């Protein structure tokens, strides 16, 4: 009996050891990046690299463009996906699989292939505008927006509440904005956060369509100033992580 207990404990120690090793692999680059971004010329540490972020002349343009793309992608994503996924749950149930299939395709076709087609198929007038990048981000975000909204609607008796609202004389627009949207809050927030995280991290399409967004800017800065680009990386990762942790909390509340 004692031998069995000892063996079980040894196995537990082994499990914890594996987890500790893996945790080390994930923590070391994080700690290193933080340390690296705080390094200063004379061998001491300080916040110079972070102060330097705000002295960059093109910071304003980069932030404005990234913000603009974020707003375009989030608004368009919701405007297209909320009615579509609601529709699929209401009456067009047999189209659900088709809509899901199409929404997941951006995970199958690599963005590098998509951008190759985009720069060749789109009219020059549209290619000259950064908004096209936002339109494409709506597509890249579809697998995530579909999943988030679909899961949200699963937990909702959407047919009953829509029928009730329609029966009381509400228009379809009123139904979507004042009935479906408030009940779907957590799904909508999830879709929003994931879209924002995507826009803030996307590099492939932005760099090949020659727009200077936050990720492409970090890459450019990195060619001349290592500590500044590491500081920017740490800052952007921290921001994205706060967003993603918020999503997981929103998710947990929905399940509860």
């Amino acid at each position: 009996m004692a031998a069995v207990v000892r063996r079980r404990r040894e196995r537990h120690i082994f499990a914890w050891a594996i987890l500790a090793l893996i945790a080390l692999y994930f923590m070391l680059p994080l700690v290193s990046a933080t340390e690296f971004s705080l390094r200063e010329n004379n061998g001491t540490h300080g916040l110079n690299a972070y102060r330097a972020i705000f002295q960059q002349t093109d910071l304003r343009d980069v932030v404005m463009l990234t913000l603009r793309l974020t707003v375009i992608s989030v608004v368009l994503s919701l405007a297209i996906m909320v009615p579509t996924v609601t529709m699929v749950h209401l009456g067009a149930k047999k189209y659900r699989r088709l809509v899901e299939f199409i929404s997941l395709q951006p995970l199958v076709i690599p963005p590098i292939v998509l951008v190759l087609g985009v720069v060749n198929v789109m009219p020059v007038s549209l290619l000259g505008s950064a908004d096209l990048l936002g339109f494409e981000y709506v597509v890249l975000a579809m697998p995530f927006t579909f999943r988030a909204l679909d899961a949200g609607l699963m937990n909702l008796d959407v047919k009953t509440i829509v029928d009730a609202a329609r029966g009381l004389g509400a228009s379809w627009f009123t139904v979507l904005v004042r009935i479906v949207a408030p009940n779907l809050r957590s799904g909508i927030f999830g879709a929003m956060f994931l879209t924002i995280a995507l826009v803030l991290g996307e590099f492939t399409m932005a760099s090949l369509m020659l727009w200077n967004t936050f990720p492409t800017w970090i890459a450019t800065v990195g060619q001349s100033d290592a500590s500044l680009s590491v500081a920017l990386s740490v800052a952007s990762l921290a921001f994205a992580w706060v967003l993603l942790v918020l999503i997981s909390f929103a998710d947990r509340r929905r399940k509860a």
Partner: protein
Amino acid sequence: MSILTQSTVAAGVRPSRAVRRRRVLRKARNLAGLLPFFVYTLIFFGAPTIMVVIKAFQDQQHHWTLANVAESIQTIYFDSFVESLKLSLWSASTGTLVGFAATYALLKTGNTWLRKIVQTAAGVFANTGGIPLAFMFIAALGTYGMVTEWLQRIGIDIYGGRWTLFGFSGLLLVYLYFQIPLMVIVILPALDAQKREWREAATNLGASTRQYWLHVGGPILFAPVAGAFLLLFANAFAAYATARALTSGTLPLVPLQIGSLLSGNVIADKANLGFALGFGMIVIVAIAMFIYNATQKRAAKWLQ
């Protein structure tokens, strides 16, 4: 209303004209509601993708030809397909293995608090890619990285030999940063569903641990593990930003080749070669998805 229609149909009576009209109207309304989605995806996703496939088989005068595709599987371009496949297969198999071990160890500890942390962290790390990830590793294992300097202090010079963060094995190490968490996310529910009763039943029938995994646990876990592996494969195969930032184009990978063809770092008459490389990527991912569907379907039948 649906009950009413059903009963009329069952009685063999044709539905009245009003009912039929309402049905047609409802169908039209459903389709109209989905129209924006279909049109949008066709313009911004379907058309560009179809364009890549068509142009892969055309020369620059729009004549049909197989020359692009033929060239895309020769010389340096063939090498880049091999290198991309190698990197994706290596990072997918290592990621699958380590991710599985991590999840198994996590469930072995039976610690729910730890489990919550790992789940949240995995969700976060799996989404950590691109440029910031590359710079994070440069800060750790680059020539002046923190870990590099630590190791130097205890007498290990990782740059003493031929190893570099900016080559194949370096890139593999970096890719694992998003591959392992993805594996944990995908496999945790499947491992969690392993029933204790199965193990006990097998033990009561005299099965050893080895036999249990060989004949019961293994076959049940085959489909989810194979599915996860293919997901990781596609994930690594499509990755561009991290490879671009770390290798600055020195390692021939298909996405990097397409990138440099697209940004015009190459002779003009090779313009359509990029489409052929893109087509090749689509074919490889399609094959991976085909195998994925096959393994999942077989598993669904088996578990019924």
